[in-house]
């Protein structure tokens, strides 16, 4: 009798863990410190990674992260190469037409980074000059929306920052946690954040899934809600962004 009960318990726990271990594959463009980037051992780490791992524990899925270049990350989502995109994707109306978003998990604003010697305080003052951003990001769209500014698109934001450092650009526009990371760490002697660009609207990151993929969306939303309720997101913000 005992043996049968033991066997049933073992089988039940195995089946339960099989259910619990649903894998969700997230595509990440790991060139966006401190949200998602690679460390010295080539592991993908960052605020979003820890956030999704915590969400997975709460909602019962196992997140797997794949490093994918930003330019083409949405094309891969549409063709089903992965389940979701966890790469600091800002929720915008244009993007909502092409994909579905989870609940927002981080509020973000666009920051203007300039050389320490520059006196510029806003995008409008940069008429006729070159301003760079990563291709296809809301930062780049902000540059293009500004009148008279020459927009240059880069494959990675790090390349744009390097060009700013060398003097080929007058400024770079990108999300404020990334801007803070570059301006306060590696480039603290040469670059500074000139301003936060106020667009009037609230911009937040969301997890993007293919249109109609309700299953993954529900899992992710459940996880995000649990993380926010438990206050873990504030903890992670303190760890990675320092405020």
């Amino acid at each position, binding site marked *: 009798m005992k043996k049968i009960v033991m066997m049933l318990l073992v089988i039940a726990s195995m089946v339960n863990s099989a259910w619990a271990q649903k894998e969700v594959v997230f595509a990440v463009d790991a060139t966006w410190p401190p949200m998602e980037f690679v460390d010295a051992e080539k592991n993908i780490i960052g605020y979003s990674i820890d956030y999704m791992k915590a969400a997975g524990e709460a909602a019962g899925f196992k997140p797997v992260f794949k490093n994918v270049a930003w330019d*083409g990350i949405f*094309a891969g989502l549409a063709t089903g190469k992965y389940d979701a995109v966890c790469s600091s994707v800002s929720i915008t109306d244009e993007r909502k037409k092409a994909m579905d978003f989870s609940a927002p998990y981080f509020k973000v604003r666009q920051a203007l980074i300039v050389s320490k010697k520059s006196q510029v305080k806003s995008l409008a003052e940069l008429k006729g000059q070159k301003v760079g951003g990563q291709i296809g990001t809301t930062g780049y*769209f902000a540059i293009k929306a500004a009148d008279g500014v020459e927009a*240059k*698109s*880069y494959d990675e934001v790090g*390349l744009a920052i*390097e060009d700013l450092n*060398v*003097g080929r650009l007058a400024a770079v526009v990108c999300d404020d946690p990334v801007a803070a990371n570059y301006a306060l760490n590696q480039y603290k002697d040469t670059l500074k954040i000139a301003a936060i660009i106020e667009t009037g609207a609230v911009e937040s990151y969301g997890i993007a899934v293919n249109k109609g993929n309700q299953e993954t969306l529900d899992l992710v939303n459940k996880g995000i809600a649990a993380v926010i309720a438990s206050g873990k997101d504030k903890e992670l913000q303190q760890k990675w962004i320092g405020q």
Partner: protein
Amino acid sequence: MSEKQVIIDVGDGAAIPRPEDKGLLSAWWLSFLGTLAVLAYLLIFHPDPYLRLLKFLPDGIIVTFQVTIASICLALLLGLLAGLGRISRNRIVNLVASTYVEIIRGIPLLVQLFYIYFALGRIVRVPDMVAAIIALGFCYGAYMGEVFRAGIMSIDHGQTEASLSLGFNRSQTMRYVILPQAWRTILPPVGNEFIALLKDTSLVSIIAVSDILRRGREFASESFLYFETYTLIAIIYLLITLVLSKILSNVEQRLSHYERR
């Protein structure tokens, strides 16, 4: 009986139509008219993404041509110097030219582009288009060097001897007798390299130069219409290379007018 040596020439450019390929059914005409038909169909029946995209591209096309023409001029100059250097009897000049060719041919063009733009950017600030032209010019100059060398060496040695016996010195011989004749042999491969260079300019999109490919990528990243964008980009590159190869074929035909076949 001497064995006929078979030379396999795998050119990089679109197959330059031979004079025998006249008539509407040749590969060139088929490709050209077919591509035009597809383009017309897309623009007329699906103007929404395609016409919008086409209006986005013209400045990219201009940049592509600017980079191509500037690079080919630089490449021709460097190629001539490298070719002459490799034939030279002066040991040092020969060594320098040969080393240049070896090194440049050993590094992929994409890596050279990155290097000149970023690595040198720390030492001497080079604007993006200039970096692209320098990288492309240096790379193709090495290949042109070989073409020039082969062309010059293909001229009968009797020409040099006759010229020297008439009182020309070596550099005058090269300038007035050899090079004008070598030019006819050199032109077809140079033309091929020109078309290959035009296609390779698509690599400069990586250093944020706004050529056709970069403009296409920007459009695709905003509209999420990846398939449509790259279809149109491919069509445009194809049309440009087809037209250039036809022009080249006509020029070659004119030049070979005097050769009896």
